[in-house]
């Protein structure tokens, strides 16, 4: 199940982003995205999972560029969400491969997928809700809020990593 979902996610990322970019008239970029997606797919098929983190970062970057070149943000949202899904599932697949108990694997898989889809569903819903509100901020206020967010995340990550 995890494997199928990983492949499906990668295929969907490629489809969604390539389609969005092609709609914007950038055929060459669309082809490059397709090739990158195929590379990820082939690497995953061959069991080379250590590149999935790079592919995740690359596809997030591509999604940001899509927003920047004024492709509708829904394509970028789909790209980021699906990249996150593919990256998460490829790592989880490695963990599942370490156990030789099928019942444990099934239970863990069900629990993991449930939580993942719940979190992603909340994230997408939150994004959609956020786009419904319109708040005008000055650059200074926006930068201040961004710095506050970065500080919050940084301190959280630092605290947890120091525990680790």
């Amino acid at each position, binding site marked *: 199940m995890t494997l199928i979902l990983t492949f499906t996610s990668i295929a969907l990322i490629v489809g969604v982003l390539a389609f969005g970019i092609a709609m914007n008239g950038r055929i060459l970029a669309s082809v490059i995205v397709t090739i990158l997606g195929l590379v990820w797919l082939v690497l995953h098929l061959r069991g080379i999972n250590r590149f999935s983190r790079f592919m995740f970062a690359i596809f997030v970057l591509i999604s940001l560029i899509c927003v920047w070149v004024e492709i509708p943000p829904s394509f970028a949202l789909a790209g980021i969400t699906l990249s996150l899904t593919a990256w998460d599932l490829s790592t989880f697949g490695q963990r599942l491969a370490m156990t030789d108990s099928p019942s*444990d694997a099934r*239970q863990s898989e069900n629990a993991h997928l449930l939580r993942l889809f719940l*979190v992603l569903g909340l994230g997408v819903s939150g994004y959609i809700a956020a786009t419904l509100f319109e708040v005008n901020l000055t650059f200074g206020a926006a930068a201040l809020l961004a710095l506050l967010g970065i500080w919050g995340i940084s301190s959280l990550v630092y605290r947890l990593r120091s525990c680790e």
Partner: protein
Amino acid sequence: MSRIALLAAVIYLIILAGVGTLNGAMVGLALPLVLYLLAGLWRGPESLNLTAHRTLSAERISPGSTVTIEITVTNHGEALEQILLRDQLPPFLEVIEGASSRLVSLPARETISWSYTVQGRRGSHTFTHLEALAEDRFGLLTKKTLLPTTGSLLILPSLVRARHIAIRPRQTRVYSGMIPAHQGGTGIEFFGLREFQPGDSPHHINWRVSARQGSTLYSNEYQQERVADVGIILDGRRRVNEFGGGRSIFESSVVAAVAVSSALLGEGNRVGLFINGKRPKWTSPGYGKYQRERIMQDLALAEVGDSHDFKSLIIPRRLFPPNSQIILISPLSADDIPVLSQMRARGYQLLVISPDPVSFEARGLGGRPSLQLAVRIARLQREVLLRDMRHVGVQVVNWDVAVPFEQVARAALSRPSSFLHAIQRGVRS
């Protein structure tokens, strides 16, 4: 870069890009990632406080037998969302039932127990720990520890019985046994005649000779049978034991060593063992069942290696006394002749049991017609090698490992080599 750091970096990138381009939609794209990060960190493991206990249904088994390993892990700390408990097994063990690793969630102060069954080849393993890898559901925070456990498993080599190994060392020990001692005395086999001495049994008087000689009585003298010192050398050099495709003839050598040592110890001899393998291993000579157990344990651990060659081999006289019997179990190579000649010169009686590497390799490569000539040349080279060894006084038994060792032992080792030569059998099996 860890997963959490990468995720944080991506979130920063999105926020900074959104602020830099004054694009609120872009900043919003970070939301699913931030929620994912927070959900992962929400119930991540902080510390591991676990204990593990292991029990084995048997600690000493023969190849093919099964052992059930039961593991109990108790969580004395906080609840763990997801924990991978993995028992790392050596390559010679195979799980045939159950699972050696579990991926579970372990609530606080809960205990989990499971068992699995293994089967394996010859070898030994000490279970020192159980690996525990705890993480949050998304694998962002990971904590790894090794839980100490006890337990060891010894899989002894396959036991092959050889009834009798006929050896004729130049020197024997004082205790009575099965090996002709080249000395007159009490025994079974006729040794010679001597004048009757007071105390001789009347049954031993040779009446025919006494009648011929007139007034003097003559008694039959029988060959004394004693125990002997036997040193077994098992050749574990990689270059002579291993072939293409990871195939090794070493297991056959181990089988032969088990059979020979068991037979000789069973007849009361003092047997020592030297394994020239991954690590040179001496088993000092001894008698009886205790010594058999020591030898079996050392043979269970024997592995091929490439650290030592026979040229540098020094045999301690304390372990293998001069004039004693040495049994070398080796596929042999051409450069072994000088070493074996030296051993002969020091007075050792030398018997070589040589698993045939040519037949073994030829079978592994299949019956391709293109190989026939190569096999024939290799076989001729080996015949020359074995002939040269016989010329320096070494008794050689060429063993095609497709034939069971019991059969070879019965045909070529159950009688003295001189007898087998006389009836044209055995030594060239």
